[in-house]
Structures are given as C-alpha cells and as structure tokens.
C-alpha cells in the first residue's frame, strides 16, 4: 500500500454525525442538571458549599479502605501505563477499566460525568482538528463529503484523536476513585510520605481551601461591574477594564494571603501543619496495588504486541 485511499460520502452523513454528537452532549448536560435539581428540590436555604474533590471520602469500598500511599502509586502508575498506549482500542479498554473503578469505589457517576463534560470542549477540538490536519501517509484512508470536497478527513488522524480522547477520559475517570475516596489532607499527606515536598502539599491544601473564596470575590466584583453597565467587547476599553479587574483581584488575593499567614502565625504556626499519622499497611494494600499495576502492564502489552502498535 503505497498510496492513500479516498472515499466520498454524502454530506448528510457528516451532518448526522455532528447532530448525534451534539445531542449526546446536550443529553448528558441535561441529565446532570436534572440530577442536581432533584438533589436540591424544595430546599429553601441555598447550599453554599462548593464542589469538593473529596466529598465521598466517608464511603466504604475497597478504594476507601486502600492505604492512600499504595493507592497513589497504583492508580498513578496505571495512569502512566494507559498514557503509554497508542491504539484507540486500548484507550477504550482503559476507559472501561476506569468506569469499573468508579463503580467499585461506589461513587456517583454524575460526578465523573461532570468531570468528563468539563473536558469535552477541549477534547472535541482534537476530534475536529486532527482528522483535518493529519498529514496523509501512504496507506491512509481519506474521507470527503459531497459539497465540501476541499476538506479531507484523514481516518488515521481520527484514530489518533480517539486514542488521545480515550486515554484522557480513562485518566479522568481514575481521578475520581483516587481523590474522592480519602480526605484531601490524607491524600496530600500520602503524597508527602511518597516524597513530594511538604511545602507543595501545604500549598495544595491552601489552594483548595481558598480557590473558592477567590472565585466568590471575583464573582462579586464582576457583578459590581455588570450593574454599572460593563459588557465585554472586543475593544481597548474592555482590555483596560479587564486589566484593572484582574489587578484588583490580584491585590485582594495578595492581601488575603498576608492575613491568612498572620492568622496562622497567631496560632503558633512554625512551618508545619499538624499531620495526622493514620496510615496502616495490610496485605490487601499490596495485593490491590500489584493487581492494578499488572493490569496496566497487560494493557500496554495488549496494545504493543496484540494490536501491534
């Protein structure tokens, strides 16, 4: 096979595919919204809580019982092996394993779906751009659609994009059982025990605590601008105003940082957060870790030797 192959399809096929993808995306969004509404229906006091990474930390599953350090090594290791695969079929398999992990961790699927939807815009760009921009190699299969012949969809590019999307989704799905099944301080403490600098761990914890405070401040300031008639336009004036806005946000964040540090010092902070030492290792921790790493290796072997990538 030394030349590319081409095939023309009616335009309606493309339109149908776009419509189908759009409908699926909208359906997922609607499902999420409905689920959220059902959850809060009838409540009169607004739930001011912010989305929490570790909101399901109080559950009971093998992921909850798993020692955080082993869980980190196993799932991060598995994720690296998934990323090393090349075929979309391996990526699909990894995604299924990710879904299985979410199920085994007894986590609500809506949270994972929300995470995937948040990435969907970015990933959709891959699916759109890569088939159009992949340089045709000998043996590539090119699709064209009647009416827009100048656009050639390279199926190798699509396969590459699907592999990236699949791997990204698999890793995103794994993050739920990894981060949501233990409290964040515990997970961060686990990272510290694995050699991540303590200061980095403290920064993660403080960032998680204050990111929502800053977002709320940003929202209030944006409302303050809105009630005085500000509308974002493509103009120098908008750029100037946005510059002022971001500058002021930075000043406020900076001031708050100082105040928080003062408050910490006032309660005897000496550079270390009190770290609860509640780690215990059992045989099951070793076993689970070995299983996940082995699964990752098998997946990689399947990708490299079975599928021949």
């Amino acid at each position, binding site marked *: 096979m030394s030349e590319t192959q081409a095939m023309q399809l009616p335009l309606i096929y493309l339109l149908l595919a776009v419509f189908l993808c759009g409908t699926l995306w909208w359906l997922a969004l609607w499902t999420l919204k409905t689920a959220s509404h059902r959850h809060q229906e009838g409540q009169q006091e607004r739930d001011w809580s912010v989305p929490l990474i570790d909101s399901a930390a109080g559950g009971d599953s093998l992921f909850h019982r798993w020692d955080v350090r082993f869980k980190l090594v196993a799932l991060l290791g598995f994720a690296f092996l998934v990323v090393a695969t090349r075929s979309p079929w391996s990526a699909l398999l990894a995604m299924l394993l990710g879904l299985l992990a979410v199920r085994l961790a007894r986590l609500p699927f809506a949270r994972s779906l929300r995470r995937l939807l948040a990435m969907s815009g970015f990933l959709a760009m891959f699916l759109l751009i890569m088939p159009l921009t992949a340089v045709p190699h000998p043996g590539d299969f090119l699709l064209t659609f009647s009416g827009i012949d100048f656009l050639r969809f390279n199926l190798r590019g699509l396969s590459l994009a699907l592999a990236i999307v699949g791997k990204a989704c698999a890793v995103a799905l794994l993050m739920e059982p990894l981060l949501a099944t233990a409290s964040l301080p515990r997970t961060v403490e686990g990272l510290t025990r694995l050699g991540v600098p303590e200061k980095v761990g403290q920064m993660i914890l403080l960032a998680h605590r204050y990111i929502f405070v800053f977002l709320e401040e940003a929202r209030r300031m944006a409302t303050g601008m809105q009630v*005085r008639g500000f509308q974002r336009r493509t103009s120098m004036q908008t750029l100037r105003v946005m510059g002022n*806005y971001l*500058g002021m946000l930075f000043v406020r964040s900076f001031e708050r940082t100082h105040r928080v540090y003062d408050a910490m010092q*006032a*309660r*005897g902070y000496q550079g270390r957060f*009190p770290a609860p030492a509640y780690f215990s290792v059992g045989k099951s921790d070793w076993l689970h870790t070995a299983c996940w790493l082995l699964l990752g290796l098998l997946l990689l072997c399947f990708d490299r030797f079975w599928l021949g990538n």
Partner: protein
Amino acid sequence: MHDLQRLPPIDFSGPAQFEVRDLHFSYPNGQAALRGIDLSIAAGDRIALVGQNGSGKSTLIRHLNGLLPVQQGELIYQGEPLVGEHLRRARLEIGVLFQDPDDQLFCSTLYDDVCFGLVNQGMALETVEPLVRQALASVGLEGLIYKPSHHLSYGQKKRAALACLLAMRPQVLILDEPTANLDPGQEKILVELLRQYSGTLICITHDLLFAFELCQRAVVLDHGQIHHDYTMAELVAHPPSMREHGLDFSFRLAGLANQDLPPLQACTLLPEPPADTGTASHSKGTAVLALGNYRFSYPDGTQALQGVDFVLHAGESVAIVGENGAGKTTLLSCLMGIQSGTGEHSLEGANLSRKQRQLLWRKVGMVFQDPADQLFCASCAEEVAFGPRQLGLPAEEVERRVDQALQRVRLSGYHHRVPLHLSGGERKRLAIATVLSMQPELLILDEPTAGLDPQGEELLLEILKELPQTRILVSHDPFLVAELTQRTLVMHRGRVLEDYSTADFLADQSQKSLNLLALGYRQQRSREILELQHQHQHSHAHYHLHDHPHRHGELVHSHPHEHQHDHPHAYTHTHGADSSEHCHPPEVGYHEHSHPGHEEEEHRHVHPEDESSDG
C-alpha cells in the same frame, strides 16, 4: 478632657500582663502608625480599643501578638520582652479573632482548624479530640465538626474561628471588629460567648454599644497616640470627647434624647420614621418597579424566591429586612436584572423581557455592602466616570457628573486619589458616587453603614437623606431603617411575610422573635448611655427634712426638722423640645445622704411647741 497623666482605671494589685512603653512603629513607606504608646494591661482586663480608621488600633494589636516587631520602645508580656522563645509561647496564649473569619479557617475541616492551635501547643493528636469537640460545642457547632469551613454561613464561620481560639484556652483574647457583618441572631450568640470568657479581653470596634456591653475600660487612639484611657462609662458619657475622635454615636440616641425620659423598660431608642408618603403597597404614586408572583431558583434547585409580590412607587423609601438566607440579596439581584426568575417583572408599568431586564442598570443603581466589590479603577475620577462612560455620555457630561457626584459625597478634590488607599468611610462614599454619577431613578443600598466608624456613619446618613432617589435599603440596623425608610418588607424563607409601614414594623413585636433587627441588649445599653450622658452634678442650696439628735444650747433632742444647705447632687436631666436648655425633674425628691458633723452644729429652728406657746 485629655488627661494623659491619669492612671488607668484598673486594679494593678499584681504585675501587668502587658506593659507597653514608648512604643513607636512606622510602615516601610514611612507612615508613622504608632507614636509613643504607653499602656498597661492587667490580667482579666476588658478593654475596648477605639478610634477612627487609621488611628493605629490594628497596628497596636498586631504588636501585642508579636505579628509586628518592636521597632522602638518596649513591649513586655508576663514580665518578659515579646521576642524569641517567649514570643512563640505567648502566641499560644494570646488568641486573635480576625475580622474576616475566612482568614482564620484555613484547614480542610472544622476539626482540623480547631486542632491546629492545640497541636501547635504541643498536644498529641490522639488526645485533642475531646477538646476540639468541647470547643465546638461551646459555640454550638458540634454537629458540623467534620464539615469544611466553606460549608458554613458567615455567622457560623465567625463562631468557628472563636472556637479555634477558645480551644487553646487563651489568657488573652483580642477581637478585631467582632460584630462586623453579623446578623442580630449571630451577634447575640457571640455576645453571650464573650460574656462567659474570663481572661483578658481586648476588643477593637467601632460599635460602642457592643463595647459598652462587654468592656469596662476604653482606650482611645488617635494618630498613633493614646488620647484617653478611662472607663467605658466615662467615654460614652462624654459626647464632646467622642466627637473629637470621630466616635460620637449620640446621633443614634437623638430621637430619645428629645423626649422626656420615660421609664427604662418602656423606652425605645428608635427615632420616628420619616413622614409617611404612602405606606405599604397601598401607595398612590406611580409604580416604578414591580414584581408579581416572582419565583427564582438557583441552578442547584434551591428556591430562593417563592411568589414574591412587590410594588415600588416613585419617591418611596423601602426597607427590606430578614434573617440571613431570607432571600433579600436574591430579591435585589432580581430587581436589578442580575438574576432572572419567572413571574412578572415590570418597570413603570411595562413588562420587562429577559433582555430588557439586563438593561435595568441604566435606571437602577446598587451600592454593595463591601465597597471593594465595586471599586477597581486606578483613580477616584476614573471610578466615578466608569458608569457614565458605559451609558455612552459625551466626555464633558461625564466630567460634569464626576465633579457633581464627588461633591455630593463630600469627596471633592479626590479625583486623582487611589481608591485602594482611601479609608473605609471614604471608599463607601466613593462607591455611592460611582452609582450617583449614573443618575439612577432607583437606588438600592445593601447595609450601607456596615464597618463604618460613627463619624463616617453620621456623614453617610446625612448624604443618604439628601438624595432624592426612590430607595430600597437592606439593613439589620433599626436606626437606619427608621431614619431612611417609610415602608418595610419583612422577608422570611423566600417569601414576603409582611409589607407595612416602618412605624408599624418597629412597633411590631412578632418580628423580634425572628431576630430581624439588632435590638436586645443594644436597646438597654442605649438607654443606659443616654442616662449617663445626661447625668451631671449641681451644687446649690436646697432644703432637707430629716430627723437626728441635735443640740440647742444645752438641750439635746431629736425630731423631724428642715434646714437649708448646699452640696452636689447627681441629676439626669431632660431637654425641652425646642431648646438646648435643660431642666431637672420638677418634683421634690427625697434622698438619704450623710452630713458629717451636722449633729454638732448649732441648730436654730422653730419647734412646734414654741409655735403653740407663741400662739
């Protein structure tokens, strides 16, 4: 009134807990914040540290906790300078409650936050749990022990921050504006907690009623110096001295001061609301803005407004009151078109489409509770010009409006000042100017006086009274509600519970059970302060009728007799309605007091038997 040599009004039977001698401090930009502070604080003292914004209060307490180093002078805590190892120990004994509780709750759960200080005190993690539970239980938050702090309401956060300190059993508790942004219900809980605290209490506050409730001693700072150090009662009893330092809140008591003093229990400190130009929804004027059966739910499904009916007429001034979470802010957002719900929303009789609601900013201006949310430009002039520019006005008109608005809020000449560098009161007035420059038909004010010192509060009130706009005011402050509005909407759980005249609202007892306004101890304390301010001593001749052994030459006997002499008496006076002259109670008052040596004096008075023998 400045008597700096006077000894502080405390019992120094032992060594002072804090001894500050000739303390000076300047910030890196050269601004002198403290200039020769001398202060002794005894264990168990309860001090209100008062003064205008920028007087050096915060700088002083940051020294007391060792957050700022001593540049010049001496700072002794428990007999030793506050440095090195002693400073580290001291920080674990001195608790500071910061103004914004979000600064103080930096851990992932309440448990971790309370635990933080205890572990730094050297306690083992395994042993702290009962103490954490006890501390949270003492502030009524035991049920939220494993909750992250961003799940809490503002009042709960404030209490949680206090629990973090109380768990450490501090010998000294320093509070920075503890009542700021608290609703009356939460404030009541905080006051109760602080009443029970037995250590040294140092409180920075502009709220002198709160300070009067909790503190015995008042230290007045002005431009980095201590100007007065006396009892709280002495401070509040002397309005000229308070006025000199921008602390005079007597204007809040004016409504009561102009009346004859009624009995204590029956007293109300609230002034008469402004003349009723048509109360409740029965007003006759043109309807400026109206909501009909209006509902709003947040994306998470929370029903924030449920069938709200509200008509605002031209020229009206309406207060919206309700506990936190009642839906006040959501209602304002909907009125402004920031949020859009379902139901009727009309402006001057015409129904508004969703798109038209987003243009309401052209007619409706809103001043936020925190002016920082509204100020983002590099200069005051730019800030005030922002709105008119968005309206598309020509440059000359924008300039004219900027001058006019700044003048109206008493900030003429502030054109090139940086908003970030202004005082709290000035920033608040600037925020109002940013809205006034757009000449809105309706002005919405959200807690306009929150965080202001009394002088700033009085000035702002004066400015607000001058504004001709139709107004909506959201406030927990009964004084402000009474001063600025004629009609009140009581909100509860997303519904309008009552819509009546402000006079009826203030007289309504049922709203008190909802804790809508900051009454309670404040009413009682206001009354006491008013009496203190009207108490003075006169010395003049007056008659006494009394019975004691006395001498007439050789004759010694005892019987009721009357004679005249003068000595000072304490009086509580009243003012006539149209006079600054005061008068004392006209009725005869009988009282007990000693007359040392009076028995030995020669008595010359007529006896009944003398009169009968004469007859």
